[in-house]
């Protein structure tokens, strides 16, 4: 699975929202279509892109084919931790700057 395929798959906000929903547990096309007010064929098209990118898997249950997040793709916990790590790293880099400014101001006063 190439980086380009992942980015292309994730560039669409509906597909990102589908992944967020699947992070809560598996779902069928019918279950996914409801909150998005989209037709089932439209959702199926998005799911096809996500499956080709290796991010979503399906299993067979009678007439249904529930989809789930692929473990080897984006694990929901890893995704969330990566997002948090990025936010914290940015915050603490800024804090490094704020602390340096505070200390040089303190030096000037004393």
């Amino acid at each position, binding site marked *: 699975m190439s*980086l*380009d395929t992942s*980015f292309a798959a*994730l*560039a669409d*906000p509906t597909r*990102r*929202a589908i*992944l*967020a*929903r699947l*992070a*809560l547990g598996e779902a069928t096309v019918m279950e996914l279509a409801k909150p998005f007010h989209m037709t089932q064929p439209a959702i199926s098209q998005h799911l096809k892109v996500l499956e080709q990118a290796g991010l979503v898997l399906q299993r067979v249950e009678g007439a249904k084919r529930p989809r789930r997040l692929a473990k080897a793709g984006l694990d*929901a*916990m890893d*995704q*969330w*931790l990566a*997002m*948090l*790590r*990025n*936010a*914290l*790293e*940015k*915050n*603490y880099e*800024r*804090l*490094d*700057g*704020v*602390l*340096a400014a*505070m*200390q040089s101001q*303190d030096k000037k006063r004393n």
Partner: protein
Amino acid sequence: MSKLTLKTEADTHLVVTRHFAAPPEVVFRAHTDPKLVQQWLLGPEGWSMPVCINEARPGGKIRYEWRHPTQGAFHLTGEYVELVAFSKIVHVERMFLPDPTPDNHVETRFEPDGAGTKMTTRMTLPDTKTRAAMLATGMEHGMEASYVRLDSMIDNLIPSAASR
């Protein structure tokens, strides 16, 4: 080395550690003076913090609001539980995405570490549903930024592509 470490503890908590090149008193001040907090607690690039209320005393109120030019806005509220100058801050907070998340109990400790400070923050690990809601807000921005970077990388590598 100012390296951030992030660990999950059981399935219930998160522990974050970071070293800072300033003594505990300075780092503590940077966490409790709202004018200072507003300069660094901004999250990923692109967000601003129009509201920063931080009443650093037990029972004191916290209110932070963030805004992005294209990704919208969200806020959090909280209360201070305990403060020990300059070594410990205990507070509770919850985010509004826009619905309130469960309360997050946060304990932050500042210890001298050479001439600097070792900061350790222990917080409640959000449940699966809250993590998904946070991802829906944050992932949008994260992936947009990555996709834009990829686009500009391609433009730089293939001069003819830039004239599209």
